[in-house]
């Protein structure tokens, strides 16, 4: 398998706070990788750096051997790295269908003149197909503000896939999804993504989901990588058990509640 | 939405608009009156000093003319018998031209008087000739109207002199009639609002001073924004500049603020202040205006108005109705309306055509003295003006003026055929000041 993403000595600090230190990761084509770590361990900072939201203080991000560190988000998206968000980033006053239609419009812009209607029957069909793949076509004509958190998550992820990424980051895809639905939610998701041969890297707190869907797992702790190996090994690792999984048990339900509250942010 | 709904809604709406548009006009047809549009500032900063006095004067005079209570020679009823029906309009508008068109076409006025701002006058001047409606402008500082914009007027008149007169007269008053200032006059300074009126006034005043006396320098020129209200820094700058004479064409609230702030800080004591449009401030500020300040009233109006039966009647009637004495914009409005009455009476017919034919070149009496429609082929008035120095009368508690000098119209207005600018440059060629 060929390496599509490689980070070399990635660092990020905010004033005196070090958010990421010496991050070296390789992702291969078609791989599914789980990322674990307690809150503030540097998982999202890592994703933010790779997707261009943050500029690393030092180090390289090589995507197909090209250094993309510090490039604008939109360029990185165009190169084939996309992401979903912990708090879904939708167009709140529009319907689900419109959200996806805009995403498709942007992904396919340049093929259409400025004065040609952006949305036609073909595009609408494509949008409905995409929603069907995530099993949310029934919500197409609802405003996103009226949806349940799980559906909002799926819309967010669906929008992240329209640019046909080579590498997709999913930031806590199941946060806000009820415990009993998590497994089937994740199955739907991975199914939908399998249609493409996208590499997927997902951040998750639920170890069962990691075990079920990620052959490989990376554990973050205080801005560094604690372990990076096949999932079973990582989950057995003593340090991981002490610093990451142990912490997860204490992670209160409040976090989820708070996430829900911020959904409009 | 369907087209049918759109058209249904718009046709209802259209019908309603049309009904509204036609209704007032239909009512006006019943009795034959002379419908007179009166345009002045009824809102904003120019309403207090200019617009409302102007409107009040129009209202007072329309009633008096209709009742025949104006003294001779205006003691007949109406415009040669035709009663006047005034329609008041606010000059403060973004679409002053469209509003003018509306007055003519919707309200179907027979004539229009008013307009204070030169911006409005410049904008509507060409429109007057296009729409062919008698329009008598009452004020406007700018001299461009007949010099540049409408060079062959038929419908357009102006019953007031332009601002060049104010500033030429002010310069003459300073140089020729202020012995204390003239010998040591070395430098002048100015504080004028940063818009056409202020810029033009200062240009005319400083040029005239330099024509009248050699080697006068300019110490400082301040052009604060109109309606700024706070002149602390400008006054400091004028105080440090130590000019012998400071000129200002401020008006209204800005002028009163300048007097309060300047007098409070001794600016008026250190230099000779010349305020070209300041009669409106007298009854407001009273003793706050330092004695010795040179006061202008944009003509022989208000405090400078001649002692005539017409003037005493006007002052008393205005005071009785509005509780204050009339200021120059009120006089200017009266000029315009009396001019129209004089023309109508002369023709013996109260119609637009009769007034146009007879107002041209007419010379008529007003509370402010004789108005002579001498320039621009008989369409632009020249009037005399007066300047004097302020003196607060402690006994009566009223502001007065002393050392009054009246200037003949021919002394301070350019002769026909010469623009104001050219005339000042030639050193007031042909000025008749005896």
């Amino acid at each position: 398998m060929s390496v599509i993403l490689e980070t070399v000595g990635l660092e990020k600090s905010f004033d005196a706070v070090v958010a990421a230190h010496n991050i070296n990761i390789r992702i291969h084509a078609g791989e599914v990788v789980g990322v674990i770590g307690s809150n503030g361990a540097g998982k999202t900072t890592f994703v933010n750096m790779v997707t261009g939201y943050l500029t690393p203080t030092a180090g390289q991000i090589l995507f197909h051997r090209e250094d993309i560190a510090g490039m604008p988000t939109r360029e990185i998206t165009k190169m084939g790295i996309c992401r979903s968000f912990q708090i879904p980033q939708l167009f709140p006053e529009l319907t689900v269908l419109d959200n996806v239609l805009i995403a498709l419009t942007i992904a396919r812009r340049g093929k259409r003149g400025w004065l040609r209607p952006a949305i036609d029957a073909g595009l609408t069909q494509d949008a409905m197909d995409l929603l069907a793949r995530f099993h949310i076509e029934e919500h197409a004509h609802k405003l996103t503000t009226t949806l349940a958190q799980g559906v909002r998550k799926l819309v967010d992820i669906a929008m992240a896939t329209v640019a046909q990424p080579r590498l997709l980051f999913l930031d806590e895809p199941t946060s806000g999804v009820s415990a009993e639905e998590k497994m089937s939610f994740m199955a739907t998701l991975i199914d939908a993504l399998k249609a493409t041969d996208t590499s997927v890297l997902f951040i998750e707190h639920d170890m069962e989901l990691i075990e079920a869907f990620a052959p490989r797992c990376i554990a973050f702790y205080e801005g560094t990588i604690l372990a990076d190996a096949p999932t079973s090994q990582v989950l057995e690792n003593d340090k991981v058990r002490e610093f990451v999984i142990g912490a997860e048990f204490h992670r209160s339900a409040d976090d989820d509640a708070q996430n829900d509250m911020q959904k409009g942010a | 939405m369907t087209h049918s709904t759109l058209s249904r809604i718009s046709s209802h709406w259209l019908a309603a608009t049309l009904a509204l548009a036609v209704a007032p006009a239909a009512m006006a047809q019943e009795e034959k009156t002379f419908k007179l549009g009166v345009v002045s500032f009824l809102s904003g900063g120019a309403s207090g000093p200019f617009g409302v006095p102007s409107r009040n004067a129009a209202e007072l005079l329309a009633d008096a003319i209709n009742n025949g209570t104006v003294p001779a020679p205006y003691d007949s009823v109406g415009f040669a018998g035709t009663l006047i029906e005034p329609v008041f309009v606010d000059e403060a508008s973004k679409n002053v031209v469209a509003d003018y068109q509306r007055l003519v076409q919707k309200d179907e006025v027979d004539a229009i008087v008013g307009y204070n701002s030169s911006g409005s006058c410049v904008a509507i001047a060409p429109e007057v000739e296009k729409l062919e409606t008698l329009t008598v402008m009452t004020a406007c500082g700018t001299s461009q109207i007949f010099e540049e914009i409408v060079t062959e007027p038929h419908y357009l008149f102006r019953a007031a002199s332009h601002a060049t007169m104010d500033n030429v007269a002010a310069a003459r008053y300073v140089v020729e009639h202020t012995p204390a200032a003239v010998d040591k006059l070395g430098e002048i300074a100015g504080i004028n609002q940063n818009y056409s009126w202020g810029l033009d006034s200062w240009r005319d005043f400083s040029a005239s001073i330099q024509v009248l006396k050699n080697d006068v320098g300019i110490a400082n020129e301040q052009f604060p924004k109109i309606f700024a209200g706070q002149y602390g820094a400008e006054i400091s700058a004028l105080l440090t500049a130590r000019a012998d004479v400071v000129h200002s064409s401020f008006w209204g609230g800005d002028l009163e603020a300048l007097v309060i702030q300047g007098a409070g800080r001794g600016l008026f004591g250190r230099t000779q202040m010349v305020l070209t449009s300041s009669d409106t401030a007298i009854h407001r500020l009273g003793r706050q205006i330092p004695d010795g300040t040179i006061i202008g009233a944009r003509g022989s109006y208000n405090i400078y108005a001649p002692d005539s039966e017409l003037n005493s009647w006007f002052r008393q009637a205005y005071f009785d109705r509005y509780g204050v004495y009339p200021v120059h914009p009120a006089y200017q409005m009266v000029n315009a309306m009396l001019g129209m009455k004089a023309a109508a009476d002369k023709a013996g017919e109260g119609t637009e055509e009769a007034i146009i034919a007879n107002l041209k070149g007419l010379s008529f009496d007003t509370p402010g003295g004789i108005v002579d429609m001498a320039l621009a082929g008989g369409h632009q008035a020249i009037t005399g003006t007066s300047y004097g120095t302020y003196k607060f009368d402690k006994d009566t508690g009223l502001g007065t003026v002393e050392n009054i000098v009246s200037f003949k119209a021919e002394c301070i207005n350019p002769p026909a055929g010469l623009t104001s600018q050219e005339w000042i440059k030639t050193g007031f060629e042909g000025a008749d000041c005896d």
Partner: protein
Amino acid sequence: MKDFDKTEWALVIAFPVLLALMVLLPRWLVNYVQISMGMGLVALAVMIQMRAGLVSFGQGLYFCVGGYAAGMADKFLGISDIFLILILAVAASLVLSGVLGLLLRRYREIFFAMLTLAVSMILFSLLSSSHGLGSTDGFNLPQASYLGWTPTGETGTAALYVLTALLTLTSAALIHRFLRGPVGKIVEAIRENELRVEYLGTSAHASVHATYMIAAVISSIGGVLWAMSLGHVTPEMANWTTSGQFVFIVILAGTGNVIAPLVGTFVLEVLRVYAVEVSPNTWQMILGIVMLLTIVFLPKGLWSLLERASKRSLPHEHAQEQSQ
């Protein structure tokens, strides 16, 4: 014309309607229709920026650029041909907005509003103190000529009216297409969530810049048409109160459709005319009260009234088009 939608058909039909109005309505009202078209284009420019969530409190800048381009073309170059004037105005506004857009496209919300206001006020101040351009008195414009033909009197007025109607409707139709097109959709998305737009792989700044420039161009066309029909320009065109008026028109009219700001401008003008007539001393209060009532009962603008009416008359036709 096969792919015309309802709005486009309405704009097509509006042309003969406007021509008929010229003949049917009293002259003074035709004047307000005509100046409302010029001003309406500026309101339209404010509206397309509002689609992106940007409130321009300085659109008077380009309105003024258009007006002064017309005036100065005659004053300094002796050009009175309206097509040449339009080309000059469009070129001037393109250059200016191209440069200013580099700065402004980074700003949102109140900061965009205040920065556009500041830039416009700088032009207002410069023009107010420039003697050569008549300071605040401004100056008058010539009668328009059309490729060598210079109609005067009634014919001149009618010719300008026809051209104004044609240009206004064409501009509105093109803007409508633009809003339905890809950039229009992106702009709408920027208002909703700029972060997501960037993550979808397009530059929010570039789309905002393009929208700003298009708004500038149609404002300057509006400025030319307005100034030519009134025959006069003053720096007041760039004053913030003028720009503010356009914003209020758009909020009152609604941003749902390109026709809304055009009609809204005319409604506001007529409202002002009658307010002044009913109460020359306190007409501002009447405007204020009408505004409040509109906001209370129609927070989405007057256009939402029409939408409601059309929905009621056609219950089966679902709101297919997302014109909020």
